[in-house]
């Protein structure tokens, strides 16, 4: 499972509210009550880094 940042194409920079899961293009909010975000945190804790936004 890999992730990448999402770019805000109006203001520039990455969205601060979510990350994209590459496998299904789902956007995962930065909310610790969200189990998908919990999985993302484990992935990051394992030493992984999200890919840059397109």
């Amino acid at each position, binding site marked *: 499972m890999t992730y990448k940042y999402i770019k805000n*194409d109006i203001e520039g920079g990455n*969205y601060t509210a*979510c990350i*994209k899961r590459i496998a299904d*293009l*789902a956007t*995962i*909010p930065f909310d610790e*009550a*969200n189990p998908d975000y919990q999985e993302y945190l484990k992935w990051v804790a394992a030493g992984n880094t999200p890919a840059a936004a397109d």
Partner: protein
Amino acid sequence: MALTQVKTNAIADDAVTTDKLANAINTERTANTAKVSLEDNAVTLAKMAGGTDGQIITYDASGDPKAIGPGTAGQVLTSAGAGAEPAFATPAPGVGGAAGLDLNDSTALRLGTDNDLSFYHDGGVGRLYNTTGSIVIRSDDYYFKDSTGNDDIAKFIEDGACELYHNNSKKLETTSTGATVTGSVVADNTPGRNLIMNGAMAINQRVSTAGLSDFNPVTNSLYTLDRWRAGTGSSFDWDSARVKQVADSPDGFSNSLRVDIGNTETPGANQNALIYQKIEGSDLQGLAYGTSSAKTCTLSFWVRSNKTGTYCAQISQHDCGKYVLYEYSISSANTWEKKTITFSGNTSDVIANDNGIGLEIKFHLTSHSNDHVSATTSWTAKPSGGTGSTYLTTSNQVNLWDHADNVWYITGVQLEVGSAASNFEYISYGDELLRCQRYFQRVNGGLTGVGASSTSIRANYIPIVNFRASPTISGNAGVDFNNPGVNSPTQSSFDCGIQFTYNPNNVGITLGLGNYSNATQGYTYIQWSSATEYIDFDAEL
């Protein structure tokens, strides 16, 4: 006149000698067969032999007369039936008089011309039967107590209260203005008593799309019918097994969840498979876990399988990692059976009052021996060593994957406070759908947006009910928009995320969507997705 009769008194004493008798008489006399006939009524009481005072005469088995008795004072003559002599015997104690009236088991006191009212004890149960009309009992006050007279069961007081007791403790009392209940009231029609959502397996938002009829977890846990998750422990391979919503169900239900096994599998080390539901902690505060008042609950469900044997149901408390584990048996193949499991509340560990996981209700389908433990009715910490699995069964758990044709169904799942299962709480489809939509909503026409650039659109979505938490957003196709008669932006690939942090207590989500062509900044758009295109908002636990 000829002399034809001579009376005996006319014969001189000793005048009739043997010489005067006929030879036949002498012959009978010599042979001791001479008979003397008595006239009727010739034997009077005075002519009978004397006996003991109180004796009576009967006949023995040879038919000879026999005196019996006299017995003792108070005895009565009792027949022993044909072929046996009657005898004097002491009657059953206490018949009549000051000693009362005693009747043997199942011998009824019967009242009424047609024996309409009968009252007896059959040796185990006292019975009062009335077959005609009603029974009217008149008294000012009534007291029902246990057999010892120590415990109250009910009291009915003239001009006063009617009281009902449980274990000698008053629970319900009528008053001049109504009634007072001490404790909680649980009734079959008490709304909101079922802590399980979609227990009737009626809601299936995820498979409302044509062409997608079932779920195949393969090696990843996933949600299937609303709120019900197919679980895989340690990447157990469900292989071609499918989870489906089907119409096969017991009477009173319209749907069930079915697991079809397509290929045989044997769970490897630490592997499991199960169907389970996670219940939000804030919905469980009434259980008073972590206090001495922790509530006993009852889990009931209907289950069916061609594979008979022992299955396991596990209730896990997420915050503390403790569980209780019960076995249930499917005893008849291909037959719906209702199972009931009652378990005590956890008095030691609180369920956090938040939007996280409170309890998990797990129905196991297979389990590797590394995750075998003993069944327990006590809240037990999950094993700290080994796998430390939260998926636990006993060693008796069947392997549903041991034959390709195996199937397992479940429906009518209910978790409620109390030590007995009430009838299933039916919830309207619309209400149940709303409850499930706190955790998942599928949208294919709910967005309104404004072009932010030629390639992006900003949109607002107002959930039909607020999500439990900020949802993961995914889709099966690009999200198309339309400004009728003006232009129709199309998305090359799905790209939709939350623009600002979502607050579950506020209404509405602001979304950002990219990857568009033909969008125009400032134009207003409505979502223009076909029936088979959707956006999923997933806020499941």
